[in-house]
């Protein structure tokens, strides 16, 4: 539909949309007054997954289901989605910031010849144009941007937008257009799973604990992992800790690492260099534990404790346990 806001579905590769889709659909529905539609490119969708999208508020689901669509390859997805977009002329195309969606919608925007606003943190309709807000220059400024024509293509930073509430009983029409899949140039070889920490994914977690050089060595991260298990958090690190070889690269938070925006960020032995802040400053609540009262992280922290983290962490884990056992 010409007024539709498409939401590109990020799924768990097992037929269910990820929970970040509640945020994307929620925001698309809010901005468009209820015209959110889901577009799902996958090799397997489940009925439960389709119901979930409807309950979050997608009025229609465009299901492009084809074995060639997994694992994600931009060159194949773009053809399939562009063909549908040419026919249906959506007003906007939203996707969450994930490794594949970020690449995919950039490529799609180029195919459609339209603008792309990546990693947005707010949207507003101004008259009949959409204005997006996105952090730039290491998060030091906010840019308000707008598009020359539709579809307005954008990616949304996870954990920033209010998720749609799932309303049981809401339904959506499911359209199953045949997807034209181009011959693939890229050949899939294998997927190497990371050794699972059993903790949430850094970019998806609602709570993130970050350990910096103050952690003093790789062996001490277990104390953060213990706390993380109690409160359901992910554990990240500063670049100093990553470069010292204490944590793998994928756990680095900051400008040359991951951008996160959890409900709660807690930094332990992190000084708060500008490049670290670039990756976490849109966190809702920031806690800093550092023995140096002058550490720059205290300037943006909502709560701070000036003390030795090795005294604070065990005590904090104990108190969280007490609280959550209640």
């Amino acid at each position: 539909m010409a007024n539709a806001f498409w939401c590109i579905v990020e799924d768990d590769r097992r037929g269910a949309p990820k929970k970040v889709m509640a945020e994307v659909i929620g925001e698309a529905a809010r901005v468009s007054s209820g015209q959110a539609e889901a577009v799902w490119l996958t090799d397997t969708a489940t009925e439960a997954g389709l119901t979930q999208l409807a309950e979050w508020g997608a009025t229609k689901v465009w299901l492009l289901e084809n074995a060639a669509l997994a694992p994600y390859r931009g060159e194949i997805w773009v053809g399939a989605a562009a063909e549908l977009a040419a026919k249906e002329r959506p007003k906007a195309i939203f996707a969450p910031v994930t490794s594949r969606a970020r690449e995919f919608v950039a490529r799609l925007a180029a195919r459609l010849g339209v603008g792309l606003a990546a990693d947005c943190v707010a949207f507003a309709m101004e008259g009949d144009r959409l204005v997006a807000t996105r952090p730039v220059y290491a998060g030091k400024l906010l840019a308000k941007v707008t598009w020359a024509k539709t579809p307005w293509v954008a990616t949304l930073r996870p954990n920033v937008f209010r998720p749609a509430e799932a309303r049981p009983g809401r339904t959506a029409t499911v359209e199953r257009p045949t997807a034209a899949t181009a011959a693939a140039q890229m050949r899939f070889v294998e997927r190497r799973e990371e050794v699972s920490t059993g903790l949430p994914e850094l970019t998806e977690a609602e709570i993130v604990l970050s350990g910096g050089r103050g952690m003093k060595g790789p062996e001490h991260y277990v104390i953060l992992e213990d706390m993380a298990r109690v409160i359901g958090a992910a554990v990240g690190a500063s670049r100093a800790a990553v470069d010292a070889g204490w944590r793998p690269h994928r756990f680095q938070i900051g400008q040359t690492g991951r951008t996160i925006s959890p409900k709660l960020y807690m930094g332990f032995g992190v000084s708060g260099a500008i490049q670290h802040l670039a990756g976490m400053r849109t966190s809702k609540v920031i806690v800093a534990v550092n023995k140096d009262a002058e550490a720059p992280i205290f300037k943006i922290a909502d709560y701070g404790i000036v003390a030795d983290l090795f005294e604070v962490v065990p005590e904090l884990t104990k108190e969280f346990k007490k609280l959550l056992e209640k």
Partner: protein
Amino acid sequence: MKILVAVKQVPDTATQVKISADPRAIDTTGITWIVSPYDEFAVEEALRIKEKRGQGEVVAVSLGPERVKEALRSCLAMGCDRAIHLNDPAWNDADTLVTSKALAAVVKQEAPQLLLCGRQAIDDDMGAVAAQLAELLGWPCASWIMEEAIDGDGKTVRTARQVEGGLEVFDLPLPAVLTAQKGLNEPRYPTLRGIMGAKKKEIRDVKAADLGWAPEPPQLSVVTLEALPPRPPGRILQGDVPTAVKELVRSLREEAKAI
């Protein structure tokens, strides 16, 4: 093997950025400019490929105003063989798509086997240009790669790209686009000899007319830049560790409702 590396010049993150009189742009006075860090990983990887194969050419390409020569010069000092500077006021308002179109025109002229970009430029943080170049060129693209290996014949590249929960390994026929990220390698520092040698290397200026460029409006434009809204003042929790911790947990639950 000929490799092109697209590099963007960006303000050093350590420098302060201020909004200029025109609220859509930053005030560039006093800014220290650097090669975007991810692009340094791309340059490094290109140099390593050339060194491993014992032959080849690495060409750095950048679009931007005159000051961009400095960034290209540092790529030459790292070891790139020559550089191309897309330097024309026609691209002053370029968004990622216009940038990609202009770069794609140069890539077509140069016809490299591999195009390396950074994961994202740390000024606008779009992470779009590489994928858009791939689309415009009709080349396969692997973003956020952690490793790559080109086969002996120089026909395909095997790459592992970072995705949530793991790495996905693909074979891409060349020519292809790859984007570099931290963890791929450790960029080298230019040697004194490299710096001296860079002065003699070619930086070719390319004007819009050289590409047969027809004026192209940006598809995305900045309405305004704004300073961050100030965060409410924070609170240092006082007392000994157990007291401060108890107060923190209470505040997180009752005030911030974050736990």
